[in-house]
């Protein structure tokens, strides 16, 4: 019985999530409205999207050991390229989405080929520099294309009717869920492929991989490109969910948020980044509501001020997880069972250190 449960719970969870729009289950505290209401579906869809994005980012951080500070660039490329293809070229949604994702892939391939020439912290800084260049470009609004601070909203006339309007939130929700399943499948498939085994080798000890006669560069470039492609596809889903492209998506804070999600959940694990992404997104939204609620407003200012800043709470939580819970939330069950953890031969260390 328990082995069945262990084996099939992801599928059961997926079915439950797919059926969520038909449910009116109230979840007080967790969500504002009942489960199937448009507001709740929108929030859960965002959570699922970020769960997928974090899982895709972990392909670099946790699976290959590459600390990239520029992942938001590929997300923003998918977002803006899709939006602009519809606005400026008048393409339909599907061709625009394909074009947007292709742009992300191409950019990740080119910039990855360049960035991966340096290793360690140098790689982190090159990716940061490219992402910062992208963020500045989006902010400065060249030629009036990106819309500067305000961004550009998606043109309703180019989107399929089934994806517009509050009554169709369920469709957007299913798209986000499909995106998450796609990311999980791609990550699972690539990680268990021969390439994925080389990634694990690079994460543990890059020099040894070289000694085995393999060139790590090509394998790392594949990881970078696949991860960029997943981020670009996430940008398309984000465009649908929020109805527009805004410069916040390109900023360095967006990459740092992904980093926090992955480490919070547990990098290098199958479900950790997903868990971290869902929790982070949910907390960032709900903590914002909490800050405006009456119960917090009555607190003395020593407590009220920190509680009213979601980023402060999340940053503090992140530092706490890094210190107290190496391996993230995914390592928590193993830690709570001291007997089993003691019997295990190797301690759980999910954050790779070899490539730092």
């Amino acid at each position, binding site marked *: 019985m328990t082995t069945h449960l262990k084996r099939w719970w992801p599928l059961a969870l997926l079915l439950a999530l797919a059926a969520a729009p038909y449910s009116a289950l109230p979840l007080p505290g967790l969500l504002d409205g009942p489960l199937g209401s448009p507001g709740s579906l929108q929030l859960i869809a965002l959570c699922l999207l970020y769960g997928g994005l974090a899982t895709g980012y972990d392909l670099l951080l946790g699976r290959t050991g590459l*600390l990239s500070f520029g992942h938001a660039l590929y997300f923003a490329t998918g977002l803006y390229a899709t939006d602009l293809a519809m606005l400026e070229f008048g393409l339909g949604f599907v061709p625009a989405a394909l074009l947007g994702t292709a742009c992300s892939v191409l950019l990740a391939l080119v910039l990855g080929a*360049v*960035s991966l*020439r*340096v*290793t*360690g*912290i*140098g790689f*982190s*800084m*090159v990716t*940061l*520099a*490219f992402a*910062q*260049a992208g963020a*500045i*470009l989006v*902010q*400065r609004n*060249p030629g009036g294309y990106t819309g500067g601070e305000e961004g550009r909203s998606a043109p309703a006339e180019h989107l399929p009717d089934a994806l517009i309007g509050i009554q169709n939130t369920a469709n957007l929700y299913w798209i986000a869920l499909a995106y998450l399943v796609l990311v999980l499948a791609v990550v699972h498939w690539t990680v268990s492929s021969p390439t994925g085994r080389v990634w694990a080798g690079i994460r543990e000890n890059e020099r040894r991989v070289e000694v085995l006669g393999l060139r790590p560069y090509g394998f790392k470039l594949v990881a970078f490109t696949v991860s960029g492609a997943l981020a670009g596809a996430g940008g398309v889903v984000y465009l649908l969910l929020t109805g527009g492209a805004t410069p916040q998506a390109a900023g*360095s*804070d967006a990459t*740092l948020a992904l*980093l*926090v999600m992955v*480490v919070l959940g547990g990098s290098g694990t199958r479900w950790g980044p997903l868990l971290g992404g869902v929790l982070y997104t949910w907390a960032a939204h709900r903590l914002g509501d909490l800050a405006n609620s009456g119960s917090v407003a009555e607190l003395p200012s020593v407590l009220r*001020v*920190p509680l*009213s*800043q*979601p*980023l*402060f709470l*999340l*940053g*503090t939580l*992140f*530092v706490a997880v*890094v*210190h107290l819970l*190496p391996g993230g939330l995914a390592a928590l069950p193993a830690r709570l069972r001291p007997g089993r953890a003691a019997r295990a031969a190797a301690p759980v260390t999910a*954050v*790779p*250190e070899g490539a*730092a």
Partner: protein
Amino acid sequence: MNTVVLLTCTGLGLGALYFLIASGLSLIFGLMDVLNFAHGALLSIGAYAAWWAATDGGLGFWPAVPFGVLVGTAASVLLELALIRPLYARPRDQILATVGVGLALPALITGVWGSDARPFPQPAALSGTVDLLGAAVPVNRFVLIAAALAVLLLLRLFLARTRYGLIVRAGVEDRAMVTALGIDVRRAFTLVFAIGGAAASLGGALAGLYFGSVNPSQGTGLLVFAFVVVVMGGMGSVTGAAVASVGVGLVQQFANYYTAAGLGDLSVVVLLAVLLLVKPRGLTGRLA
């Protein structure tokens, strides 16, 4: 000509600001291999402490600057002792911890004083302009340049003439060897964090003067350019950071003025990528 003089002075002032941030960042990375993402937050702490002391605290501008530096230094030492030191065995987690602090502290400042820019009090002696070769240059540019030169001189004296300076220089070269010689290099870690925090918070207080206001995201915004300076100058090199910050400040000012606005920022950031790619060994610094 007027414009060129003004742009040069402004660029040098900006470069001085970059140097104040980058000198500490460079020393910390050179010695400890920690890329301190919380360094911008330290700058913000210095800026807000000075601003608070000068307005609500009623101290006036001149005592407010040392107050800001003191608070920033204390915060920096606290950061090292409480959050970085327990993670010595996990280098990547050290960087992650500073990322968390870099997110949390500006958010806390936003929570206390709001996200809007607050006007920074300008003392009468520093609010005017100086006539230099026919251009009216604001005095505060020269204050920044003087402060950066003083910090550069003090740091060089410290590194060249004191025992701890010797340990820091040796640690940048080869940390393992210093430890093997029986010297507790961890004390030097706290020291470089204190120096870096002091320089960054001085930069914060003077950034208030330069920009005329303080806001919570100022420090983080300057941090990326400080990274450029650190990499250009060679990690761990204080003199290299000084030269690089002058270059970056000038390039940014001139490019922003003579080409499209924002192109200067963009060119500097792209410069970082190009430098790292052409000279990947620029990261392993030499102390000069």
